[in-house]
């Protein structure tokens, strides 16, 4: 789960990581008032959206007075921000964060991530702060420092010193990095983060280290033990269809093709997109109905798929390991009947009680095309779309 910068900074503050003073504003007048309260000669007005690349996209502006802050906020609020991370559709800005300006001496990059290949935590640091770290890794990999931390042992002082001196910091700054990184690590572990990125980490004119920008991702699987973090979720930042799917416990990702898919299991759901593509068609969505798919869930999944106006045919692909194909078949028949399905429907049932399921489909009186194998399922779904004149 992602959170906004202002929320990330609130958490950093809670853990004692130095961040500039700031206020959230949802109107230009609030931004003006925030700038006045901060009393800083320069403030920065920053768009709050779940995407990076805000600066280049015009979502970050400097202001030298409260009235300038008001003006900047009026330009940013309501804009559709498009960066390399938002996709071409962009994101509408609903909130800005007004922050006291910092005197920047030098910028660094600092992050904690879970490294899947070492199965440890990884601290990543670079002197190339404020840049896209993937570009730095691709072009100047020698400028990236990284080290592994065993979650059972914890981050050690020598490791922080290794990072600090490796970044070329002086002894005074290394002494400041020790509590900074230590707090960041505590936050990561205590709040079940999956990634914490400070970019840039700045060395100020007065020699302090401050987190100028902050991005925190949290592990969805651990939200059950962090209700405070779960409460930070901003549904407005999510794709409406994905949000709806999330609420009924389905894994859904919208795509731009025209064959709607309902599948059980993430791997088979991905493979279903692949087989449609191999057969010359385009999938409209990824949808994993999960192991416990029943009649109600099938209906909900159909409604979700049909909300996408591009859908010209539906492919149901079930390999019953846990799920019973006869129950899925009942769900499909009920959903197709109740929703008055108007697009062609191809259904492939295999595994647990598949024969019973196929009988239910055949006896339903509905126009359902049965498929036996995965290839046949893909071919029939693509043919169904073409038959419809598309």
């Amino acid at each position, binding site marked *: 789960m992602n959170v906004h910068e202002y929320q990330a900074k609130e958490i950093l503050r809670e853990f004692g990581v130095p961040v500039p003073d700031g206020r959230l504003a949802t109107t230009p007048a609030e931004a003006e008032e925030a700038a006045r309260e901060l009393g800083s000669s320069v403030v920065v007005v920053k768009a709050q959206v779940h995407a990076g690349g805000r600066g280049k996209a015009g979502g970050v502006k400097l202001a030298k007075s409260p009235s300038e802050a008001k003006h900047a906020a009026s330009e940013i609020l309501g804009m559709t921000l498009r960066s390399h991370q938002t996709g071409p559709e962009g994101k509408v800005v609903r909130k800005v964060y007004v922050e006291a300006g910092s005197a920047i001496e030098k910028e660094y990059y600092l992050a904690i991530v879970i490294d899947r290949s070492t199965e440890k*935590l990884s601290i990543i640091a670079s002197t190339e702060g404020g840049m896209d770290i993937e570009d730095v890794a691709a072009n100047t990999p020698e400028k990236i420092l990284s080290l592994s931390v065993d979650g*059972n042992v914890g981050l050690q002082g020598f490791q922080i010193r290794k990072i600090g001196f490796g970044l070329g910091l002086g002894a005074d700054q290394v002494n400041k990095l020790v509590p900074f990184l230590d707090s960041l690590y505590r936050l990561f572990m205590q709040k079940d983060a999956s990634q914490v990125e400070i970019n840039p980490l700045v060395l100020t004119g007065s020699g302090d280290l401050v987190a100028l920008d902050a991005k925190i991702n949290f592990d969805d699987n651990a939200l059950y033990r962090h209700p405070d973090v779960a409460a930070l979720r901003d549904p407005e930042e999510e794709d409406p269809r994905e949000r709806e799917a999330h609420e009924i416990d389905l894994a859904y990702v919208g795509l731009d093709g025209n064959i709607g898919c309902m599948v059980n299991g993430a*791997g088979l759901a991905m493979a279903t997109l692949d087989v449609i593509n191999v057969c010359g068609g385009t*999938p409209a969505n990824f949808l994993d109905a999960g192991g416990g798919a029943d009649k109600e869930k099938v209906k909900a999944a159909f409604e979700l798929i049909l909300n996408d106006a591009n859908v010209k045919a539906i492919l149901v692909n079930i390999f019953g390991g846990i799920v019973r194909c006869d129950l899925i078949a009942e769900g499909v028949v009920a959903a197709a009947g109740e929703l008055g399905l108007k697009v062609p429907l191809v259904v492939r049932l295999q595994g647990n009680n598949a024969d019973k399921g196929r009988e239910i489909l055949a006896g339903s009186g509905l126009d359902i095309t049965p498929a036996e194998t995965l290839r046949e399922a893909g071919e029939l779904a693509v043919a169904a779309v073409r038959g419809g004149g598309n």
Partner: protein
Amino acid sequence: MAILCDRNTKLLIQGLGRMGRLHAGLSIEYGTNVVGGIAPGKGGTEIDGIAVYDTVAEAVRETGANASVIFVPPPGAADAILEAADAGLALTACITEGIPALDMLKAKSALAGSPMRLVGPNCPGVVTPEQCRIGIMPAQITRPGPVGVVSRSGTLTYEAVDQLSRLGIGQTTCLGIGGDPVIGTTFIDALTLFEDDPDTKAIVMIGEIGGSAEEEAAEFIKSQMKTPVTAFIAGQNAPPGKRMGHAGAIIAGGKGRASDKIKALEAAGVAVSISPAEIGETLAANVPGIA
């Protein structure tokens, strides 16, 4: 021969909720020797005819169990894995989906040096055809034979096994290693076991987007293996930055793309099926005389 489990496996069920009971029953029906179940506080009773123990250690002492399957819900699953290791089991398969990543990171680190093999979590388990079923796979689609199957996905394992069985190609052992970012048995671990199994003449490996386990496996296959490998990578049409159902299935920061994995595997001499519908046929063509 087979890997991980066979007719000598004595299985415990950790977590006797709805799922645990359902699949314990199906495993017993398949002929698996289920010797007990764990339900703290209910020791000494029976559930569905299965003897119940308070702790894994006690169950091992009383039954000589050497393996377990875990159906414990996410908050207690890592604890259950460590309890299995503490009791001296040789194998545990954790079916549970949704375990916090840091719990697994710590558990995996704590298992370093332990002789226990962990399969999963977030996996369908292990089946050695006609001998032993651990987990939730529909074992009736498997048949004994010369092919080892290893996959990150559950239902896609069934798909591949079904394609093989329909072509008359049986399996030594089928296992799902799980779709989470941190897992016990990796592709390389499973490939090593199959390579050392004299009855496994060919391997099907099913990967998916996210992480670099397939690239690491490709390197291993190239340098260490003689057994022919056929592969499929799911998610060739997955958009970057979106989690595709599994916690680990995400293309992030330009890494974890299917195309890179396919390229690495092909460079290692692996026959990669581009269509998920042709995994069985690709293997049959790659390994003449296997059917």
